[in-house]
């Protein structure tokens, strides 16, 4: 290649480049004229993001848990959510179905099986009549089975919702749906939403406390009290129900409280410098969490200690100090609420009555589970009542789904014990206190308790109702994430007005 050819080639390249530059610039301007025009149009016609006071972020990174006022005066100041993980059978507790007894042992009609999916039932199962005796209780005449004799005695304080339904028939997704509004991971739990929206009154204690019993965490794991995309300060604080409620609460040997304070101050100072540099609000949350941890060293042992409670209270709840049990957690829940904790979440594992062994049999282990919770829950309601706190404390009891009117036949075989499979179409939860109608039953299931025939509600409706009692419009409590405001009930949810007094 000669010098000249090379030269020409270079000239050509330069010319091409110039043309391309011209072209792209023009192209760009032309495109942007249209594009900008479109954007301008959209803005003119009101398609752009709206800034309304309702969608404001309630998060103040420096004081994330400062108490806030609700949008309208709520009846409830605190919530105690009692979750029976594994899903208790509504057919042996509150949903009395004499017709089902008549079908006991018969083959399940095809009409109930067609197009349905079950977790374990295969082929044609047999129907299983109610395995408990029922009676009507209180002036309201609520049906409660012999499995919960104590609760039956205060039926007039409760409001049963017998027409609950869900669309998840496995524990983990169903629990997530109940507590976070979606069967998938990643959304904030209801306690997180509530502490995000309301903060908490007692600045020395966490706003959202979680206690578990039954030997296992719920199947969905800690995500059921996670904070999802909300700032992490709103996630549930799980306290141990045996030994120290929070590990490393006591000052280690040779470490004085002053020294501890000094070291926390130093850490916070470093974090504050860090915040100045990066402006990440999570750093401020971290600072406030350190301060909270320091304060909790004094406040938590006091409030989390049930040993100081008088004997008659222990007798009332049936607590066993020193052990890890549901009754202890229930008593703790009362103490926490009394001290201004916003949301207390109790999970009790062991309600998954499939009939695979005696502890999961509907006529054996299930009854024992009932005996573990019946007395203490009754005591909780009465204790809150006599302390004048039931008016402002909402109690919710329930599982993540119901159980089938059919006897489970895992792998199509007869099971060694009587049990019921997971069931999505009907289950019962109840609420009490904080402006909920007393002595009322809402919704109905069909003759055999297979599906809800009136007043059908979804987990979203329960969530909407809980938020309503706390003073929120569930459609307005939002947090911006991934370009749109999210809320607990997302696109669903209707407050169940009929159960509000």
């Amino acid at each position, binding site marked *: 290649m000669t010098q000249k050819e090379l030269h020409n080639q270079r000239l050509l390249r330069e010319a091409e480049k110039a043309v391309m530059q011209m072209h792209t610039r023009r192209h760009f301007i032309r495109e942007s004229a249209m594009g900008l025009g479109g954007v301008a149009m959209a803005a003119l016609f*009101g398609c752009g993001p709206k800034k309304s006071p309702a969608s404001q972020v309630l998060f103040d990174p420096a004081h994330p848990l400062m108490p806030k006022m609700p949008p309208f005066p709520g009846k409830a100041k605190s919530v105690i959510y009692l979750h029976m993980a594994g899903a208790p059978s509504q057919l042996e507790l509150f949903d009395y179905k004499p017709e089902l007894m008549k079908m006991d042992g018969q083959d399940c009609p095809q009409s109930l099986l067609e197009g349905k999916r079950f977790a374990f039932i295969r082929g044609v199962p047999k129907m299983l009549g109610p395995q408990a005796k029922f009676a009507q209780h209180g002036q309201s005449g609520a049906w409660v089975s012999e499995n919960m004799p104590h609760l039956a005695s205060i039926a007039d304080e409760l409001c049963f919702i017998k027409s609950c339904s869900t669309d998840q028939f496995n524990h983990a997704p169903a629990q997530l749906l109940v507590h976070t509004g979606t069967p998938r991971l990643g959304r904030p739990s209801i306690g997180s939403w509530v502490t995000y929206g309301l903060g908490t009154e007692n600045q020395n204690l966490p706003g959202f406390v979680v206690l578990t019993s039954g030997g296992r965490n719920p199947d969905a794991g800690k995500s059921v009290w996670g904070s999802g995309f909300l700032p992490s300060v709103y996630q549930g604080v799980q306290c141990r129900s045996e030994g120290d409620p929070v590990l490393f609460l006591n000052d280690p040997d040779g470490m004085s409280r002053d020294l501890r304070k000094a070291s926390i101050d130093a850490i916070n100072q470093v974090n504050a410098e860090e915040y100045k540099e990066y402006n990440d609000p999570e750093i401020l949350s971290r600072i406030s969490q350190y301060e909270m941890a320091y304060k909790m060293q004094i406040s938590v042992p006091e409030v989390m200690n049930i040993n100081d409670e008088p004997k008659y209270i222990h007798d009332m709840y049936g607590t066993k100090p020193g052990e890890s049990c549901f009754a202890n957690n229930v008593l703790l829940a009362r103490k926490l609420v009394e001290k201004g904790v916003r949301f207390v979440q109790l999970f009790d594992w062991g309600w998954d009555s499939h009939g695979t062994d005696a502890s999961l049999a509907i006529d054996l282990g299930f009854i024992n589970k009932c005996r573990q919770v019946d007395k203490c829950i009754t005591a909780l309601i*009465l204790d809150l009542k006599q302390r004048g706190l039931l008016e402002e404390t909402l109690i919710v009891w329930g599982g993540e789904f119901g159980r089938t009117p059919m006897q489970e036949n895992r792998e199509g075989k007869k099971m060694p014990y009587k049990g019921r499979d997971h069931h999505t179409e009907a289950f019962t939860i109840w609420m009490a206190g904080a402006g909920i109608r007393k002595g009322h039953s809402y919704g109905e299931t069909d003759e055999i308790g297979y599906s809800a025939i009136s007043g059908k509600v979804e987990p979203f409706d329960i969530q909407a109702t809980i938020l309503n009692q706390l003073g929120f419009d569930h459609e307005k409590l939002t947090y911006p994430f991934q370009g749109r405001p999210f809320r607990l009930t997302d696109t669903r949810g*209707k407050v169940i007005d009929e159960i509000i007094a």
Partner: protein
Amino acid sequence: MLLTITEFLGHFHPLIVHLPIGILLIGLLLQYLSRKEKYTAFKPAIPLVLLLGTISAFISCITGYLLSMTDDYDESLVSWHMWMGISVALVSFMLYAKEKNPEFAINKKLLALGLFVLVMITGHLGGSLTHGSDYVTKPLKNIFSGDSDIAVSAIKPIPNVQEAAAYSDVIKPILETKCYSCHGANKQKGGLRMDDSLKLMKGGKDGNVIEAGDADASEMIKRLMLPVDNDDHMPPKEKSQPTEQQIALLHWWISNGAAFDKKVKQLPQDDKIKPSLLALQKAAVIKIESSFIPKTPVAEADQKVVAQLRESGVVILPVAQNSNYLMASFVTDTIIGKEDIALLQQIKDQLLWLKLSDTNLSDEQLAGVGQLANLTKLNIAGTNITDKGLTQLQSLQQLQYLNIVNTKISSAGLMQLTSLKKLESLYIYKTNTATTDYASLKTTFPKTTIDTGGYEVPTLATDTTLVKEKKTY
């Protein structure tokens, strides 16, 4: 037979009508441009374009007339549209004639301008007939009112559905959004006009649409219930359909006599209709009416005082957003500071709820609390107060909730509070009141629910035993 052919031809009107609009406007444009030297080449085309425009205008007139005979539109609007349309055809013909024969003694510019105006007016009137007269301006209204939701549903939420008028608040909005566009002031398809109660009950060409008291026999309900694909289904498939709830409401209203002057609460409601009715008020902001909050508004509290209290660890908040009333709680800081009670007195107009439970509250401080005249809720449980201090609360005339659980108060002390006429709930668990006094307390406070507590949950044999499997050998 003839009628069907007429109808068939008439239905071409909406199609053909666009031809004269386009062609005539192009003719006018060419005419305007051709005056410039650069575009003189257009000149020969102008007469042809105008002729085509004129012909299509005449055809539009004919098909339009046929259409107006078969469908029921607002008479005056139709007649205006018709005469304007005829004028368009005539004027465009005149313009064509002028182009062909320039000696015609008419001002061409005036003629062209007139034609342009006529085309616009006729077109607009035509649009009003099919889409309603506010079709163009409605989106603008929404933009300016800043509420795009109106475009989605014109049905406004009802604050209290039971007090609402059954027809004008519940039924009419449904008809307005789903029916009026074809059976309203502008158009009365099938001779039916629904925006007027008398005309609605009179029905259309084929008779009544509403049989008061018998919804199932009413043509309106029948048509609503037909499958969407059925030709008689109303509203027509391509229009927006009412929801099931809306149909249920219409059914309910007709079944109960289709009255125009009754309130919702005056009509019988069964369990099925209740949710649909309630749903109407759902969209509205449900405000929990709280008897603990006075209805009369109050001025904002001195923010300096509020800040000072907060500084000393008191939780102090408005009872709700947009309310100046306050609640205060000493739950975090259980030691009442020297200044605290005095500060609370400075915001006594606003302070409604006060929680002093488990604090070091003394009788002396309680005297200060007794001056917080607007208090509706007071919790002094677990404090060291005595009967002497309690006397100070006599002046709390608004008090509805009083919690003295776990204090040294006796029945004698409580008897001093008979002046609290509004007291609704009184919690006296673990006080020095004797069980024998409960009866007399009940008679002293007849309107008050007194919770004496001391509930017991007896331990049953089953509570501590386990059910075990019966072994069979």
